[in-house]
């Protein structure tokens, strides 16, 4: 009677299945709030994009498309390793789970590394509003607004990544210590949901910031 799933079952739940189900629902509710959290920024961006089409296009042309595309691939790969680690833990291959979680964390760090490289390049090009911003374009005001949104949104996304990577590392360690098995691995399941959501946010950020002004 001392297997992890029994120990982990809290008294307000009847069965392990019920606990997993409610935890999953809880995570999805949290993701709904996250949709609205990023949604506020997306809505503001959409309105200003409609008004300052030209300036926002020019801002988008300042993006580092190669780094951005590579970063997207890196993040999608990390989502794959995350999805696989959830699969492996549910069929009881905990060592594989451990390796896949580590891979996820490493890919996450690579993503952040590339992201901060981009930030550095924007700084060198004097495109950081409030710190060092210069532009000779007739739409400099709109470009600055574009970059305000760019830094707010990718910055918040990066913050979510940092939190996600920390939790992935903790869960990798807990997996190595044998805390999870084929019957009880709800935390990894839920972490997976969070990780994929952060991936989805990036997919949209990539679309609106990098792609829409690419042809210029």
């Amino acid at each position: 009677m001392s297997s992890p799933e029994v120990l982990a079952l809290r008294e307000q739940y009847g069965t392990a299945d019920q606990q997993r189900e409610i935890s999953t629902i809880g995570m999805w509710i949290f993701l709904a709030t996250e949709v609205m959290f990023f949604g506020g920024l997306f809505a503001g961006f959409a309105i200003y994009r409609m008004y300052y089409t030209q300036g926002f296009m020019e801002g988008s042309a300042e993006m580092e498309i190669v780094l951005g595309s590579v970063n997207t691939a890196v993040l999608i790969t990390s989502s794959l390793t995350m999805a696989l680690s959830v699969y492996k833990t549910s069929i009881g291959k905990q060592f594989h789970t451990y390796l896949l979680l580590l891979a996820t964390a490493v890919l996450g760090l690579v993503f952040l590394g590339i992201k901060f490289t981009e930030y550095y390049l924007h700084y060198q090009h004097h495109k950081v509003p409030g710190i060092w911003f210069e532009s000779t374009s007739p739409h400099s005001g709109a470009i600055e607004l574009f970059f305000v949104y760019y830094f707010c949104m990718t910055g918040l996304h990066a913050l979510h990544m940092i939190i996600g990577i920390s939790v992935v590392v903790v869960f990798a360690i807990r997996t190595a210590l044998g805390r999870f098995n084929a019957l009880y691995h709800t935390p990894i399941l839920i972490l997976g949901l969070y990780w994929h959501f952060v991936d989805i946010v990036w997919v949209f950020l990539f679309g609106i910031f990098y792609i829409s002004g690419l042809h210029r």
Partner: protein
Amino acid sequence: MNSLQLLPQSASTFASEYDPFFWCLVVVCGAVTLGIAVFVVYAVIRYRRRREDELPEQIEGNYKIEATWTVIPLIIFLGMFGWGAKTYFDVEAPPADSMKIYVVAKQWMWKLQHIDGQREINTLHVPVGRPVQLIMISQDVIHSFFVPAFRIKQDVLPGRYTTIWFKATQPGQYHLFCAEYCGTKHSGMIGWVYAMEPHEYERWLTEGAAEGSLASTGEKLFHQFGCANCHHFDGHGPCPDLRGLYGRPVVLQNGTTRVADDTYIRECILKKKPAPVAGFADFMPSFDGHLTEDQILALTTYIKSIGPQPGTGQPSSSGTAPKNYGTQRGIAGPGATSNAGTESDSR
């Protein structure tokens, strides 16, 4: 002054449209509230608990009754909405022959400029019986122009013009308040509106017109700031000829079209790099920080007052734009709006 007032003064056409609606709502809502109160008090007394272990008759509900008190309020509410929308449109859309007065709000004062040149601070003199349209802008934070006796209120925003109108009916002296919180001396940002008989107003106008009309002030500024060096009125200068500009569509270099209204002219003066007009280089420097909002209004009034170009009346400098191109119609900035061809005093 009496220290107990129970009814507001009513001194505009909108006030006499407003009050019947308001009191009608008071009567309807008051009657329903009273009805509910009487019913509740009656039920509480009539059906008070007489024994500690009393079990009353159980009634689950009645869909018919419930549907009734869902649908009837809905119909009444829609009526209120319709009446409200009608009055709103009346107060939002000024008549075409309105007399225009420019309002600049700043922490914590109202600056009012008449077309004829009178400037006032925290007071506004208007004639009775003539519609007055206020075109308002703020130099700093959001303010709100509020005259209770006229029942009008409109927020005054920085960076963008807003407008409201009224027609005073009773001569007198009325409160002017700032109704949108604007900082420390918000409650001191008050003044008076003086509604005067037309002949008295005429006398007031002649007494105070020391500085010349608003357009002449604008003309002085036009020369003082060197605008005239580039904007020649002969069609041959390095910059667009401004004759007859006001109210016309302007084709810009990027192919889009803008109507040259107050908002557009203000933008051209202030923007670091306004979008250049088709056929012209972008020489225009930004006057942001060099001109106050009232000076911009004077310049705008001056530009309005410049007559049309001789000949066709089609200003060659700004090109002709018989149609709108593409998707850019009227989109210029969150605050901007186009005034397409409704200005009556562009003559």
